[in-house]
């Protein structure tokens, strides 16, 4: 970590600068270290809650009437541990990042606060505490998103995020108030009295939580804030939001709808499955055509949250049909996907962050050639991309494999609903994987390989050691998920046991060295595949040595330019051109706005002076759904504005009027 100062970009010249630099370094180390320390504490607490007995903590004085109740069970512990693990990597990374980007004091203070708030949410044991922690988390993240508020894009993204997160919070507030009205304040008491909750209340709570938690998890159609806010936030914050905060939405689903209110009726599972698969396909489609590195990652978050929700829905649906064993499989898939997504998304955003710090670029069309200039970061992003694409040796593979297995092994019997849902879901998952591969190949191949497409990318420098260290931790986690998910077997077992309503009491899949499915002749061994693949590749390299003694000496030659002297880097495929076929194939869904305009020379219309090709890929859902709402709200606000002429007396009169009305009513 000490090497961070050596290549911190501000080379101290005057001792004034020296002092400021030293102060900046101190603050960065303090903030990042605090974040990482919180992460360590969180991980330890979470693991102890998973394996030890649940922990209770009641602080009466902190909040009038109800007090603050913390109640950390295996489920909460799981999420606390995941969040903590993410925070460790991010904290270490932030030490270097904050110095390189000259963070102000404010974000430095808010970063640990944000982590603390996120750790509190799953630990909350009562409705009030939950809402308190939730709002704290939302506020802290909002402030952090706005930390580069001098850019216009950041401000608009912040506004978007503020509105949507508050609306979501309103929905959750309503849902939980209804719930506590029916069952009490503490989650434990509610869970004890679920019998007394009417089906109408259950439905209301489910729909409201679907809105609230869905918007936090970035599910369609409430995802719109995510691809705006996550890219605009500073990269460590993006990593925290995209890898940890979105999980809180999933946690809400599991805790409220699956654990407390479950097992829900069929249509709960069906709704979750539909929302999940639609979000997954839409998210990955947007990711595969977006040319902004961080936006691409953000959309891939929507995709993965969709897959997780699909797995949750499958578990709910199957357990509502009594297929507990397969439901347990689906639930395990969901949990594994949550963990692996946290790992590779952290890594992805951190790597994107160090690219941003080194080049100031997020636009893939201008990047390229980083593999030679930032080898460490390139390897890190490669690991993340492999994990996100759900291929073997990638972190996401095992989870998606389990999800597919649970889908194809659902006992349909003579049930039309299952017999229709499962094939369609498999199709959705498959399309998601395919497009995810395309998106990640684009991000890695165009962004990091080939030759630089701009001077900034040409001048890129490797990230400092602290940033690399943070990324290495996340990369190690990715490797574990890819090769030895068996290490997480006990954890998943414990968490699953805490979810009896979704097949927790049935025997889940056995995560041994061989990942076996109970009752089905289905098994897989990621570790063995990895080893065998390495051996096979070495074998292939050996094949390549055949006839080597006849060869002339190897040479390095310029690229084949079809006879011309040299290829300029402008002749390469860019991200836009790479994704163009996909954009054309899916243009009914994406609805791109492209226009080509050709300007001729004045002398003759046969001589073309220049050709401009513009293409705009806006989020169609946003265009169709949000624009009208926003317009309506603005016009209404315009109307209300007329009541604000700015005269203090009038305002006082308003106040008095209000008071009178209240008195009259409350008489």
């Amino acid at each position, binding site marked *: 970590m000490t090497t961070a100062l050596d290549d911190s970009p501000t080379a101290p010249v005057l001792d004034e600068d020296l002092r400021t630099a030293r102060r900046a370094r101190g603050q960065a180390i303090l903030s990042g270290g605090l974040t990482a320390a919180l992460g360590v504490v969180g991980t330890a607490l979470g693991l102890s809650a998973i394996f030890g007995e649940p922990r209770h903590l009641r602080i009466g004085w902190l909040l009038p009437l109800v007090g603050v109740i913390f109640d950390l069970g295996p489920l909460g512990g799981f999420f606390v541990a995941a969040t903590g693990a993410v925070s460790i990597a991010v904290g270490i990374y932030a030490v270097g990042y904050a110095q390189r980007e000259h963070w102000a004091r404010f974000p430095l203070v808010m970063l640990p606060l944000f982590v603390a708030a996120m750790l509190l949410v799953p630990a909350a044991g009562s409705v009030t505490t939950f809402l308190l922690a939730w709002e704290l988390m939302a506020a802290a993240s909002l402030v952090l998103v706005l930390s580069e508020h001098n850019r216009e894009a950041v401000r608009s993204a912040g506004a978007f995020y503020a509105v949507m997160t508050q609306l979501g919070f309103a929905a959750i507030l309503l849902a939980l108030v209804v719930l506590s009205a029916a069952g009490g304040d503490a989650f434990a008491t509610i869970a004890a009295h679920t019998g007394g909750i009417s089906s109408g209340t259950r439905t209301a709570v489910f729909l409201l939580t679907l809105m609230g938690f869905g918007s936090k998890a970035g599910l369609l159609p409430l995802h719109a804030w995510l691809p705006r806010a996550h890219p605009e936030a500073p990269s460590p914050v993006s990593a925290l939001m995209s890898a940890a905060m979105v999980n809180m939405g999933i946690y809400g689903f599991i805790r409220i709808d699956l654990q407390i209110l479950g097992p829900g009726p069929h249509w709960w599972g069906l709704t979750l499955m539909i929302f999940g698969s639609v979000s997954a396909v839409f998210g990955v489609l947007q990711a595969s055509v977006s040319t902004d590195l961080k936006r691409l990652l953000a959309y891939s978050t929507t995709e993965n949250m969709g897959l997780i929700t699909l797995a949750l829905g499958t578990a709910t649906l199957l357990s509502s049909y009594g297929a507990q064993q397969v439901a347990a499989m689906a639930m395990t898939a969901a949990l594994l996907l949550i963990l692996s997504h946290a790992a590779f998304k952290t890594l992805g955003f951190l790597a994107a962050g160090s690219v941003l710090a080194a080049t100031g670029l997020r636009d893939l069309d201008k990047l390229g050639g980083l593999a030679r200039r930032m080898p460490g970061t390139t390897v890190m992003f490669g690991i993340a991309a492999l994990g996100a694409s759900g291929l073997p040796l990638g972190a996401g593979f095992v989870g998606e494999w389990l999800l597919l297995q649970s889908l194809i092994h659902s006992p349909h019997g003579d049930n039309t609903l299952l017999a229709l849902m499962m094939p369609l879901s498999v199709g959705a998952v498959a399309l998601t994987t395919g497009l995810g591969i395309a998106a990640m190949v684009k991000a890695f191949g165009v962004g990091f390989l080939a030759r630089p497409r701009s001077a900034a990318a040409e001048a890129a420098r490797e990230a400092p050691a602290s940033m690399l260290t943070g990324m290495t931790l996340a990369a190690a986690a990715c490797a574990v998920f890819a090769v030895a998910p068996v290490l997480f077997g006990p954890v998943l077992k414990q968490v699953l046991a805490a979810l009896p309503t979704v097949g927790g009491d049935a025997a889940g899949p056995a995560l041994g060295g061989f990942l076996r499915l109970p009752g089905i002749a289905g098994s897989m061994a990621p570790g063995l595949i990895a080893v065998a693949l390495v051996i096979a590749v070495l074998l292939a390299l050996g094949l390549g040595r055949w006839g080597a003694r006849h060869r002339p000496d190897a040479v390095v030659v310029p690229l084949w330019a079809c*006879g011309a002297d040299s290829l300029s880097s402008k002749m390469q495929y860019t991200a836009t051109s790479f994704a163009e076929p996909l954009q054309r194939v899916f243009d009914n869904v994406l609805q791109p706005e492209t226009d080509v305009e050709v300007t001729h020379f004045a002398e003759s219309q046969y001589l073309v002076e220049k050709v401009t090709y513009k293409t705009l890929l806006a989020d169609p859902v946003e265009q169709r759904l949000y624009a009208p709402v926003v317009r309506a709200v603005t016009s209404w606000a315009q109307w209300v504005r007329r009541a604000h002429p700015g005269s203090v007396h009038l305002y006082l009169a308003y106040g008095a009027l209000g008071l009178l009305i209240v008195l009259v009513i409350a008489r």
Partner: protein
Amino acid sequence: MSWIGKIRRVGRIVEPADEAPEATAAPPTGVTGSLQLRHVDCGSCNGCELEISGAFSSVYDAERFGARVVASPRHADGLLATGVVTRNMQQPLFNTLNSIPEPRVVIAVGDCAINGGAFAKGYGVVGSVADVIPVDVEVPGCPPTPQQIITALRTVTGR
């Protein structure tokens, strides 16, 4: 489908192969019967191109002797040059040759490629292929017949 009947009726239309000529140049890598060629038109009148395409057509079928025309010089081990070398094609000819991995042969097809032919005194002409790059095999004729081209190729493939 009427095509199947046509295929059956036409049968084999390839000319019978006469016995292999003695190899002038040893096959580039010591492996007989495999020669990938990259064709470069240095400034030809396209007569030789017609005959070359004839040599690879169904009737003469140079592929049965292991010769094949490929798209990229990286895949090739022979350069098939036709026509006089014009000024604009001199550098491309160099570049193409240099991007063919060793060992490689250069085959000059047609009188123009060998000695400039009818265009020798042209104003935009650098000279024959041999003036620009070393030539291993020459196929005289204006244009050479597919049979001649195939015979020349067989001296290289040794098949």
